[in-house]
């Protein structure tokens, strides 16, 4: 397998794996936040704020994979 073919196969799979990982993470974050809001509706604002921060951190990992893909995709 030459370099281009390896890159062509690897990039989409890599970004897919990254998406799966951060999808699981986001699911957990959303789950926790929704449960917390359900238990304490009066703290909704604070919980949502923290949820967005942590969700952004989890999502960033996929974005890194995405940026890497765009950096490498011209080499295919």
């Amino acid at each position: 397998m030459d370099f281009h073919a390896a890159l062509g196969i690897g990039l989409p799979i890599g970004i897919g794996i990254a998406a799966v990982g951060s999808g699981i993470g986001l699911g957990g974050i959303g789950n926790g936040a929704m449960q917390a809001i359900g238990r304490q509706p009066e703290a909704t604002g604070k919980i949502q704020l923290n949820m967005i921060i942590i969700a952004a951190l989890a999502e960033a990992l996929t974005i890194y994979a995405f940026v890497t893909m765009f950096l490498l995709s011209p080499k295919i």
Partner: protein
Amino acid sequence: MGLEFLARIRRTTLWLSGIAALVIATYFAPLAGAGLALGALASLANLGLIELLVVSITTPGSKASAQARARAALALGGMITFFALGALLLKFLPAMWLMIGFGVPFLVMLMKAVALLLIESGWWAKFTARPWRAALAVLAVAFAMWLALGALPGAGGASAQRSAKPAAHQPAANQMAASAKAPDAAEKVEAGGDKGEAAGEKGEKKEKEPGFPTVITLLEQAQPHAAWLPFVVHYEALLFSLFIAGLICLLAFFASREAKMIPGNLQNAVEALVEALHDFVVGILGPKYGPRYLPFLGTLFIYILAMNLFGLIPFMHSPTASLNVTVALALTVFVYVQYTGIRGLGIVGYLDHLIGSPRDVISWLLVPLMLPIHVLGELAKPISLSCRLFGNVFGEDMLLVAFATLGILTLPIAKLPFGLPLHLLFVPLALLSSVLQALVFTVLSTVYFLLMLPHDEHGDEEKAQHAH
């Protein structure tokens, strides 16, 4: 009929010539589009002056006669000036398109008059009495327009059809390909068949990143050999971000220039935004430090939001889809946060913070471990901030481009100058993500400030936040 009819003509002409100019500027030549738009504008202005003249002459009553004479003189003088201007325009812009633009209002007038006659006639009432007959007529008209558009040389927008008849309209087709919504993707599809045709200029075009055409791309086509062009193309994102900053300054100026107790619309909107940002920042940083950092953080939010949303305007480009801009923003935050830390804690306190505030023997033993962790953590902040913003905005733009390309490629046989607007499905998503990313950037910057500020009651929280 009368003045109201003329006003309607003016509105219709403005819309029609605007859209036509945009389409022609994209698919033919930018100068032609400009010519069309300017011609239509000149014609409209001329019509307005004629209207003024006629009204001032025919207005009954001798009371306002001096005024009427002044108006008539103004109208005549304006028309003569316009003749001179028209001659000047003819020198610089393609004459054919200027004339077409000049004719647009008359065409609209004719069509409107015909439509009025038609609608009032009994035949039309009989015709539209039955819905299916009317629907059939609409379909027939649409079909006829389709055929007519296909027959027009060079009317097809999708570059995919270029291979069908390459020799017939090569110059137009080349420009179309460069400006069709996603040149790179479409070119890759047929790169094999096309290479021999225009290899010279294609070679450098291929290096460009895929994307929607912007004002800069249009400039590039209009003046391909200008001396300032490399500069403009190279600093595209910077120019756009400066432009946006200027727009925001203007908006703020106009909103705050005449502050009133009972605000107008603009002042009201800006005040609501500032108030929301104030509550938000003070809610995180507390009433002591919040107001001090509000200007910086609020400006960040508004600026980033404006830059994210700017890419959704046709012929504009999101500056945040370029890593240069986002890194600059993140570095600003980084430097300001470190400065805040050093200023608030003192040099010793800052170093103490960096080595993890050791107070007993075990934590002093852990210093060699804590120092690199903290330093790396500080350095990772700007990287993650900038990459997150860049990745999201860039990815969102690429998504829109990919689906617009798909929309063009679905209709190559129809030879229409446009494709299916498939990317419209994702515009709401782009709106949402633009706002969210601006918010996330601001929230994270605020939290970085919070971590650096001297805090008494937040000791436990800080450790929890450092964990990530």
